[in-house]
């Protein structure tokens, strides 16, 4: 125990004297947190749309006005001799609405009026959103011009309730995910750098000849970087509270216990990488790939895991961030508590133990060799 503490103290002193490491530990994570939060969103507003109105009737103009009133679309002018397709090619508009000559007459006579809407589908998701809004706007326009029906409105009316996030703020979705991804990058990065530095500069040989055992040495490192990771966690929590308005929605204990396990897991991953690769530059890349890229892509951070094709979906099971995102979304948004997320801390424990075991075996083997 004494030796573990001594090792941890040595690590903390070392990092205190390394300016770049300190910046990496405390400043950069917060910058990235803000950047991710601001840049990653799918909530599109003010998409430029051009309109070609062959009808020029009062009804068609009212129809156009209902598009003008929506937040999603912003009507931009179409040059008199320009074809709407060209405006889409050009990137000047993301959608084009073409109203045929008989639009107003058809409506007045109670017939079906046609409207053509061209949507730029290079971005399929935005195209889908535009399609949804265009249909909704058309329906509400129809409802507004129809005389109030005597038989009492539509047959079925849906009362839609948006739970947990009634304002549909994308911050509440991105926030907990960014929180997890940042913690999957920086704690293991620092731990891996420190481990591989010892290998690169051969100071590890001093460790081999000292009386410290492999697990004491590793636990000392993990303790030191765990302390730093906890500080990062606390800073990130405060930052995301102010940036994304995130705060505990229910029982915080699953998240708090999960956090300890998650940080242990990530630091162990870093130590494992550092022990395996005695080259700092290569270790950085390994953490970037294994820690960051996987947490970013295969954790359900931006899009549901069920959207990942089954052939690579199994990989997500070993990505710790996946479980922490479940915990964070539950704690900050849904508030379901233990019954909803009991399995996440368990999986984090298993993964953390596995990373520690691999690092320990690596260390022991080297020690025997030396």
């Amino acid at each position, binding site marked *: 125990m004494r030796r573990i503490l001594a090792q941890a103290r040595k690590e903390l002193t070392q990092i205190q004297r390394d300016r770049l490491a300190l910046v990496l530990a405390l400043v950069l994570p917060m910058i990235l947190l803000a950047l991710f939060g*601001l840049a990653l969103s799918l909530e599109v507003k003010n998409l430029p749309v051009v309109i070609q109105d062959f009808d020029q009737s009062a009804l068609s103009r009212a129809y156009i006005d209902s598009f003008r009133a929506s937040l999603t679309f912003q009507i931009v002018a179409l040059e008199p001799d320009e074809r709407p397709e060209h405006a889409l090619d050009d990137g000047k508009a993301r959608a084009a609405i073409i109203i045929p000559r008989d639009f107003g007459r058809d409506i007045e006579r109670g017939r079906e009026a*046609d409207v053509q809407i061209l949507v730029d589908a290079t971005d399929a998701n935005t195209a889908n959103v535009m399609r949804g809004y265009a249909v909704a706007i058309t329906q509400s326009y129809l409802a507004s011009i129809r005389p109030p029906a005597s038989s009492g409105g539509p047959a*079925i009316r849906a009362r839609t309730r948006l739970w947990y996030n009634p304002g549909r703020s994308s911050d509440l979705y991105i926030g907990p995910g960014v929180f997890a991804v940042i913690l999957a990058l920086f704690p293991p990065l620092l731990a891996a750098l420190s481990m591989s530095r010892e290998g690169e500069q051969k100071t590890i040989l001093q460790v081999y000849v000292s009386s410290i055992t492999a697990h004491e040495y590793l636990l000392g490192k993990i303790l030191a970087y765990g302390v730093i990771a906890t500080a990062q966690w606390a800073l990130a929590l405060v930052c995301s509270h102010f940036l994304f308005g995130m705060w505990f929605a229910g029982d915080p204990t699953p998240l708090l216990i999960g956090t300890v396990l998650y940080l242990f897991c990530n630091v162990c991953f870093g130590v494992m990488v550092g022990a395996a690769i005695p080259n700092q530059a290569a270790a950085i890349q390994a953490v970037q790939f294994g820690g960051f890229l996987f947490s970013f892509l295969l954790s359900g951070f931006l899009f549901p895991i069920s959207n990942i094709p089954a052939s690579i979906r199994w990989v997500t099971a070993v990505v710790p961030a996946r479980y922490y995102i479940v915990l964070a979304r539950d704690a900050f948004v849904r508030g379901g508590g233990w019954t909803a997320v009991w399995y996440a801390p368990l999986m984090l424990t298993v993964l953390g133990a596995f990373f520690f075991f691999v690092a320990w075996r690596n260390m022991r083997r080297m020690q025997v060799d030396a």
Partner: protein
Amino acid sequence: MRSFLDAVLSGRILPLFRKELLQLKRNRRLVIMLIIPPTVQIILFGFALNPDVKNLRLGIADYSRGVESRELVSAFDESLSFRIVAYYPSGDALGDAITHGDLDAGLVIPQDFARDRLRNRTADVQVLLDATNSNTAAIAGSYAARIIAALNEQYASARPQQVSAPAPSALAGDAGASAPAPVGTGGPQLRRATIAPHITPLYNPGLETSWFISTGMIGTLLVLMGSLVAAASMVREKETGTIEQLLMTPADATEIIIAKTSPLLVLLSGDIAIALVVCRLVFGVPIRGSLLLLISAGVLCVFAGIGIGTFLATITKSQQQAQLMAFFVNPPIALLSGVATPVEAMPTWMQPLTNLNPVRHFAVISRGVLLKGVGLDVLYPNMLALAAAALLLVAFSVWRFRRQLG
């Protein structure tokens, strides 16, 4: 420009060039690094970043349990957007399932649903959506509204006192022939009027989301790989101290840089080909425009990357430092580019800033060329901006490099 011409004419640049090529040839790790990570990353990004909203897990709490409510449930079941996973005895049980994250949406049908339907009164149903994921919730909400609207239209046309009207369709190309309506003007006719929006998704009729990500990722990879490799090859000379030996030779800084970057440029251009092949074979991205235009844009991207890498090399002493410094530069380049998420979704004040990002312009160009099939007449502003960014970055880093050596 003069010094460049001098360098080429003096014949010193060729031996330097050969030295770099030999060095690269022996560095097998670098070659592997240029092939495997880009391939894996495009595939991973294309598959994993998929915002499709399909097969939403729907739970049902049906208090009415009649023919009428079953009709509504089957309307949801028949749509591809929802998949009914379970029935719940009560709304509370359904709510708990949503809280536990077992469901994406819930449908609660009240007890008097059947009665209301029979008396031709508006029957209310509750649609509960887990809005944790705001994007999914928005799309799911519009799907639900569409399903119910279609059902309403069907009921309205079935009412005996009304002339049948075709249901509106939101699907592309689904043009229903309009039923003949009695001649007349004004009021009551309007009730039967419908508008059929024929929505055509251009450029990507199958709404393949991977086409968006993978075409954008090409630029990100070129800039990131370019900066990584350039920084590594410049810093290595510094780290091992061989830079002094290079400076002892009659070659000047410009010549050294040209000789160092041109083999990298060739190698990285290979990445453009790899990326395009992956896009084409794995995701079936079409190539509708001029490949030459796309490749020149790619080369400009590589230049920008080399500029960034050289700059990183001037402010660091070791490979490890250069890589850590890259953490400050690469995330903003990758994120503020409209590659993974649309630029229109960023805060308004941030959107103009993305114009400074070479990756953003490359993304516009690659989507323009590959998906839209447009040419230089449309893309020239982005081409110019990309060229300016590349030139500026390279000039700045060369200037810093020369000053450091001088």
